[in-house]
């Protein structure tokens, strides 16, 4: 039997290492369960290749 699903916009993070949980997914989760905490999106820097 075909199983129809209602898709959530929450990425399944159960198998994602904690250290690799994407910022965008954290923001999406915050937007769902703590909407008052979602801050203005910060802009990351594509950093100079020859330093770290």
């Amino acid at each position, binding site marked *: 039997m075909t199983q129809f699903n209602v898709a959530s916009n929450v990425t*399944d993070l159960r198998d994602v*290492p*904690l250290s690799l949980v994407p910022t965008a997914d954290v923001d999406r*989760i915050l937007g769902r369960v703590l909407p008052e905490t979602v801050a203005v999106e910060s802009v*990351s820097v594509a950093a100079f290749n020859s330093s*770290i």
Partner: protein
Amino acid sequence: MNGPFVPFRQFVLKVHSRCDLACDHCYVYEHADQSWQVRPKVISDETATWSASRIAEHVKRHGLERVHIVLHGGEPLLAGRDRLRRIIAELRGHLDALCDLDLRVHTNGVLLDDRYLDVFAEYDVKVGVSLDGDRVANDRHRRYADGRSSYDRVIRAVELLSRRREVYAGLLCTIDVANDPLAVYRALSDLNPPRIDFLLPHATWDTPPPRPSETAYADWLIRIFDAWLDEGARVPVRMFESILRTSRGESSLTESLGLEPADLVVIETDGAYEQADSLKVAFDGAPSTGLNVVSDDLDTVAAHTGILARQQGLGGLCDTCRACPVVDSCGGGLYAHRYRTGSAFANPSVYSADLLKLITHVRHRTAMPAHALPYETIEALACGYGDDHDMEHLLAGQRTLRRGLLAGVHAQRSAAEGWDLLTRLDAEHRPAVDAVLDHPYVREWAARCLTGGGSPGYLANIAAAAAVRAGVDAEITLQDVDGVFHLPTLGAFEATSGADGRLLVKDERFTLARTPDAVWHPVRKIETGGFTVILEDTDPHRHCHGHRAAGRLSEEEAGAWQRMFTEAWSLIESQYPRYAPGLRAALSTVVPLAPPEGGDVSSAARHAFGSVAIALPKDPATLALLLMHEFQHVKLGAVLDMVDLYDQGHSGLYYAPWRPDLRPLEGLLQGTYAHLAVSDFWRVRRDSVPGDTEVQFALWRKHTADAIDSLNGSQALTPLGMRFVAGMRRSVEPWLAEPVADEAIAHAAELARRHRAASGAR
């Protein structure tokens, strides 16, 4: 070239143009551009001041909140401590009052000592070191001019940095595919740096890299990526993080990947502005702009055609790149790597085949599906029930939310010690971590932290509990929260005065190191018929239910809970079998509330999925009712966490027959869903206990049906919300047709009328 003006936010300040090593792969000395030969060896104080004032001028003009400056070379430490101190002080003096200045130095490490590190610590300068892997890998290229190895001196520098992590930025490794990739990765990761990056050796189509096979660089990196991912990505690797980020539409962390416009400029030791210095590999003079800090401001440099060419995003790439499926991650690769005589930079990267293979592999291995709720589960829940299979979907979503919120706490509120231990356990002992994160009040704690309260240090308590569960030896300092050192799922130590919370976990035993006689309160469990829940009276985050939680129960009180729970559960299983599977699958915790002055109190908290709070009532039937009622809130909260049932922007307020005040739409929906179970409880109960139960059924079925009408009339339900509410109606409608004594109906109607009148609602 059209496009918005892009101010510079990254500045590479060349403070010394010579180096004390003679690495044969160095792009500064060993490639096409030889401009280093005519530069001053060291930047003058005057040029440093001009540089600082030009950057400050640019920051002010464009209102920049944050800029990044890298002190670079050659080898920057050859400038000497005193000169570096003056340069750094000049930069901080010009910029600290204007913006957030991220200041770094990148060194080969051979001169680094504690006196340099004292200067860097004083001025908050992060230090990155070049190291190409183990001794064999490093010494393949990174040698002194006389052929001596640099390895021991670099390792000594890294060890110094490991002891001063506040100034440690990470390690930079240039790839040589002749090296064993896993040996290189292990050598670097075993040093436990804050971050690693792997650099493709600079090359162009004119001077391609050594390439033993068509995708040798991809194959080399894929072996590392797989090991890195399998080990939980414990040490951040900038290249891999950037591929993952750009694959999700986020920004890259390195200019060598992604489509972000370049916002970087180099200032040479003579004050000359240059484009990215990796262009030195293309042709002699390639990075040159002809502009200088003394005569030209940075806006003039930003208008240079070479700078603008690197700000065109997708439009700046060749046709081949634009048509590539991974272009959003690759971005055409590092600009310099595209160069070919004749077509200049209008080519794919010389590493194009490697980047395509690597990015495709990373995406394939990390493809992340979204959560979904099957319609059958939605239907079962909408009708008020839901079995173990349906609960699995809610539990899965909650586990994701807790992991996401934990990462959010770490990102916003640093709690390094706990995070380090937890991520290590997460990589190696995931079931133990999951068991702790599934504790309902972990999310409540995270929510408090993320809303400005809470104690981020409690992350150490979470990690410690996971270590105990995993049987991993550890030593960590616990956070005192409300007078206890709590270990979620395990219990709490009383935090007596003078106790510092240093916990020792060894050989599967744990104790407070300096107060071994600290009083320990283990969590208790109540169990019946193979169904076990935690009787939670130790967690300081349980005080979130709007009613006072009971303190630590006596053995007698705990026994009373066990006895009443046994009878209540028996009633639910026998009389309300459609509610039992869901409760058994997802109710993990009951929090005893303090006895109220009169009546019964119970509560569910949105962030504490799997838990209900109840003051022990007078009889098991009431406990069964309260468990069913509150668990409805738990289920619906988890549904709302995943999907939208109503318009979040709707501001209407509604009469709710169980409340004295008007309620927002979500409140009405939650209450209606809970009273679906309440109606059902009294519907069944009246058969075995006649009397007031008949009135209660008549009252609550009517209230519930009326509330469903209000929800439908709100015009604010999503299509899925309408479907959900229709499911609720399907349950209550047959109950409306069940015969009830006229007297009970009249009494219920009178109670309903009085409530509405008292509420002031029309």
